[in-house]
Structures are given as structure tokens and as C-alpha cells.
């Protein structure tokens, strides 16, 4: 056991424990905060595995943006202080399937790798990863940027109430049509 192994074991234990609390806690907001701990431990794992850029992107995007968005959603939908009793379904099938898939995958991977050792490769710095992204993977990168744009437009269309739903009256942006106003045959008030 080298120092890297000890670090990986400790960070992995933290990540799995925090993940168990994310899916097990009965406090809505605390689930989001445990998710921060889990994702932070995973970022530490990436650092030990010499994936520097991925680790910092993980901290920036996951911990910085995704968790904040999730906490926003918790606050916007329902934010009870204290425990909620109606968060869970009865859990036996879920425990069976989740435990089965997790432990099955773990057994497969243990069987594949045993207790072998590998040398850590050269660190994945921003320079090396940038070379790969902008040379070998530049087409997927561009497609991904189009996908981000599509997701952004989709989120806007979904969250606006006056567009996208069939049968919604087309509102005048300057002077909205009050409810109950009789419409003439042109659809205008």
C-alpha cells in the first residue's frame, strides 16, 4: 500500500459514505450538501489519479454550478425545515436492484483487476488535455457546444409559460390580453 492507495481508499470511503447519505437522508437540503461532500471527494480522487484538469472542472461545474442549481430547485419547489416523511417509496425492490447492480459491478471489476499495480501516467494538465481536445476530439467538442446551446434554448422554452404550449393565446408583449377579454376573429383583443 503506497500513499496513493491510502488516499484513494480514504477518499473513496468518504465518497461512498456521502453518496449513501445523499440517497438516504430525510432532509431535502442536506441531501444537496452531502452531494457537495461526495463530489468533492471524487475531485480529490481525480487529483490522486493525476487528472488535474478534470478535478478542477469537477469542482467548478459540479460543486459550483450543478449543486447550486439543485439547491435552487429544492428551494423553489418545496423547502421544509427539518425531516420530511414522504420522500421515499418503500425501498425493497430499489435496494435489491441498486445493491445488486453495485455489488455485481464491484465483483466484476475486482475479478478483472485483482490486486495489481499500475504506474500513474503523466499528469493530465490543461496543456496536454487541450492538445487532445483541440486536435483529436475537436469534432465532438463542437457538437457538444451545439448541444449546450440546444439545452439552453430548450430550458428557456420549457420555463416560459407563454410559448411552446399548444392552445395558448399569443400574448401581446407590450399589452398582455387580460383574461376574459372577448377575442375577434383575428385572435386579437
Amino acid at each position: 500500500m503506497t500513499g496513493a492507495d491510502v488516499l484513494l481508499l480514504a477518499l473513496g470511503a468518504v465518497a461512498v459514505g456521502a453518496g449513501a447519505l445523499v440517497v438516504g437522508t430525510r432532509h431535502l437540503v442536506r441531501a444537496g450538501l452531502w452531494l457537495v461532500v461526495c463530489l468533492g471527494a471524487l475531485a480529490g480522487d481525480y487529483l490522486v489519479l493525476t487528472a488535474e484538469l478534470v478535478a478542477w472542472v469537477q469542482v467548478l461545474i459540479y460543486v459550483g454550478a450543478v449543486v447550486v442549481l439543485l439547491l435552487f430547485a429544492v428551494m423553489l419547489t418545496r423547502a421544509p425545515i427539518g425531516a420530511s416523511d414522504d420522500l421515499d417509496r418503500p425501498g425493497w425492490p430499489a435496494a435489491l436492484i441498486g445493491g445488486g447492480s453495485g455489488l455485481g459491478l464491484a465483483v466484476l471489476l475486482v475479478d478483472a483487476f485483482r490486486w495489481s499495480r499500475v504506474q500513474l501516467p503523466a499528469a493530465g494538465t490543461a496543456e496536454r488535455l487541450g492538445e487532445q481536445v483541440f486536435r483529436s476530439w475537436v469534432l465532438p467538442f463542437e457538437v457538444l457546444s451545439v448541444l449546450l446551446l440546444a439545452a439552453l434554448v430548450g430550458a428557456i422554452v420549457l420555463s416560459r409559460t407563454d410559448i411552446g404550449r399548444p392552445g395558448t393565446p399569443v400574448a401581446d408583449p407590450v399589452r398582455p390580453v387580460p383574461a376574459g377579454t372577448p377575442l375577434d376573429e383575428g385572435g386579437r383583443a
Partner: protein
Amino acid sequence: MRPVIPYVTAALLFGLGVFGVLRRRNAVLVLMAVELMLNAVNLILVTADTTVRAQLPHSGQVFALFVIVLAAAEIGVGLAIVLQLYRLRASVAVDDVPLSEPPAQPAARTGDEVPR
């Protein structure tokens, strides 16, 4: 470095994510469990980058970056859907959502089909 340690961590995290997706009723908590599964996949990719000598160096880490971006897009659209669901039904319990919605009655909206 023993690669079996992060691999087993990732497998257990994936199992926890599956468990959370199936167990939770709150749609935001379901999304959090989906994030756990995506992170397990990321950990597999980064670990595979250290154990597998691919022809292109650092392919696993590049894929992990792509998955992170996909997760950000997914969470944006997913939360928009969840908030819209809350606006319509004042509840985000996923097992209260009917799978087939009866079509909206077009009776009171006769002026809509006319183009502007």
C-alpha cells in the same frame, strides 16, 4: 497505485445512484441520484485512463470532461422540467404524475388557430 480501489468505489457509487433513482419520490432527489451515477461513470473513465494504454493519450479524461458538460446540460433541462411540473401540479412527486394526460379541451380557445 492499485486501480481496483477507485473501480470498486465507482461501482458502489453507481449502485447507490440506481438505488436513489428507484427509491426517491421527489424529482429533485432523483436528479441528485442521477448525478451520482454520472460521477461513478466519470471515475471509471478517469481510472481507465491510468490502466489502459490507449492510442490517443488521455482519452479517458477527455471523455470525462465531455460527460461533465453533458451532465450540466442535462441538469439545466431537467430542472426546467421539474419546475414546470411544480407549477402545473404544485408537487414534484414522480409517482403522482399520470403517464397519459387527457388532451386539453380546445373549447374555450377558438381564437388560437388563426395565424397572426
